[in-house]
């Protein structure tokens, strides 16, 4: 269960978030909509621990994590531009989180194979990330975020930049993958159809959020 309470944040004196609140029960997928500049991405960064709010708190499964550094939070994050590690191949990208935790080589290899199957990229392990197509790169980024089994998965416009057909196919895939693997997820998007396909419910940032 993710619980964001009364979070406010400003950059150089400009308010970005004002008393934002969000609750995502375990097993729920919530779509976060709102005009650009509403602070959707900033809210995700606060949840991930990449930004510390000026006021307010973030709770995860009953524990306050507002000041816990990102690497100790167990929250997965997927950016719009995938941000794959260019110096690592597909398998090493997906296994990165487990390697940081000190998992054994065999454990990493098993999990990587598992996730390549989940995202439909069997046999892609040794590929260089520079040689992936846009859709493939998104699948790898999703697999990488899922690999360490995060308590919450945050998706920042994960399907933006794909052509319509690919977008719709990936949205369906994403919906089923999230259903089968993740405990809670927040999806930032501009696209109402995408929100309806992937998420259980929709929250508009700036409006009443409970």
């Amino acid at each position, binding site marked *: 269960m993710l619980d964001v309470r009364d979070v406010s944040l400003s950059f150089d004196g400009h308010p970005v978030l004002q008393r934002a609140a969000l609750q995502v029960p375990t097993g729920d997928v919530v779509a976060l909509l709102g005009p650009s500049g509403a602070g959707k991405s900033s809210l995700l960064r606060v949840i991930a621990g990449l930004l510390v709010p000026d006021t307010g708190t973030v709770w995860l499964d009953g524990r306050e994590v507002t000041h816990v550094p990102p690497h100790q939070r167990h929250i997965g994050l997927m950016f719009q531009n995938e941000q794959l590690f260019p110096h690592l191949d597909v398998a090493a990208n997906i296994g990165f989180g487990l390697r940081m935790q000190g998992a054994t080589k065999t454990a990493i290899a098993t999990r990587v194979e598992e996730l390549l199957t989940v995202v439909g990229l069997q046999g892609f392990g040794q590929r260089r990330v520079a040689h992936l197509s846009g859709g493939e790169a998104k699948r790898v980024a999703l697999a990488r*975020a899922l690999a360490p089994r995060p308590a919450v998965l945050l998706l920042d416009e994960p399907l933006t930049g794909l052509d319509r057909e690919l977008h719709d196919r990936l949205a369906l895939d994403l919906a089923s993958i999230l259903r089968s693997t993740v405990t809670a997820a927040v999806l930032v998007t501009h696209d109402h159809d995408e929100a309806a396909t992937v998420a259980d419910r929709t929250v508009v940032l700036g409006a009443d959020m409970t």
Partner: protein
Amino acid sequence: MPALGALPIAGLAVFYAWPFATLLGRVLRPSSIGDTLHSPGIGRAIWFTCWQALVSTVLTMAVGFAPAYVLARYRFRGRRAALAIVTVPFMLPTVVVGAAFLALLPDGWHGTAAAVVLAHVFFNVAVMVRLVGAMWAVLPTDLTAVARTLGASPGQVLRHVVLPLLRPALYAAASVVFIFTFTSFGVVKLLGGAKHSTIEVEIARRATQLGDIDGAAVLSVVQLIVLAVVVWWSARWQRRAQHTFTAGHSTRRPRSRSERRGVALVMAITVAAMVAPIAVMTARSFRTSSGWSLTPWRTLGANEVRPGISLGVDPLGSLAVSLRYAALATVISVVFGGLAALTIASARRHGRLLDAGLLLPLGTSAVTIGLGMLITFDTGPFDWRAAWWLPPVGHALVAIPFVVRSLLPTLSSIGADQRLAAVTLGASPLRAWWEVEVRRLPAPLLSAAGFAAAISLGEFGATTFLTRSGRDSMPIAIDRLLGRTGAVPHAQAFALATVLFVLTAAVVAVADRQEADDARRA
């Protein structure tokens, strides 16, 4: 425009290729190679050259890491000034840096390897800040953010993400620092004392003190081979380590209080370390055995310490000589470099050959250039050793590659399209060339002239061979004064080095500003 290219090619042939061929002729005798490599002191010089270069490089990388990071990632008040202060040492004459560290370090340190290494680090931190910082500044912050959310601690992010991605810049910086410290001359000559000499210093010692020209020639070729291997190797490594990522723009203000403190601390230490040697040197120019005094400055114009006792060095005279050399060297290198750049830009394929030819002197150490000229222009109608214009020609040879480098970007950005556009608008081809290319040049030319003047003012390696007593340039005069005993000559050396520092810094500042203006206009 092939006719234009003839002049720089002829100059290159006479003043670079011919001396270099003469040098090779001296080396290609088996006896001289064997004799040199077995003569005493050689092994030690080669060993010292290698290990001090390695240690200097590793230390420079380590010391430069924090300022490179802070200047690349954070925005704060005084950032531009700090960047300028960190960059200045790199442009300083080696003799000024050597004198500054003689002034800064206690006497017990003079002549030690540690003094040499410290001065090298001071000199080269700018390379780290500029080269590695430039790449660090565009490394997307989201990439490291993703790594953090995947469970990597800040240390793990550095080790597994940041360092691997910075590798090309790290290799480039390491090879530049290694090459500079491997061929270090002025700093080692002043600070290394009798026990520590690099190959470069040994070349000069053999040629000018022992008269062992063959030995000097062998050493300079050995050095050239080592440098070629290092350059080739590092280019290969850099290519292999290259990864494509979308460049981000990531400077930001420090957010938390601990971040602000960290930034302030790193910048304070860095700036203090950069300013201290020069500040202490200037202070010591006012210091004689009887306390603070203006005497060293007042006597700069006097050739005699006491009536009838000559010092053999004319400090103020050397200022005039240096200014004259710099003026001539600047004119030569701007004319030749300008013509060469125009030729390279308009004759694309053959131009590249000329470009590479002009870079050769850059790869050849200054001492080697000086030595080559010394042994070539010594007979017959070409006995130019006593010609007053020979040192500035040597300086120009060192400066021309820089001039070409700073002009080429402007010229090649113009491109054929604009020339074609001018022709379709009714200009004759010659007129088009004049209007589109030549008229674009004055601003970058001025900045190129500034760098050429700075190089000439501080040139020490080639000048050591080409100088004639009574016509010493400032670096030579500073070196001579530091070789004398007594507090006054040393204070005078520090005074003269302060003057040279101010001159160089002023010239570089003007050139730099011109360049910044160009960048803004572009």
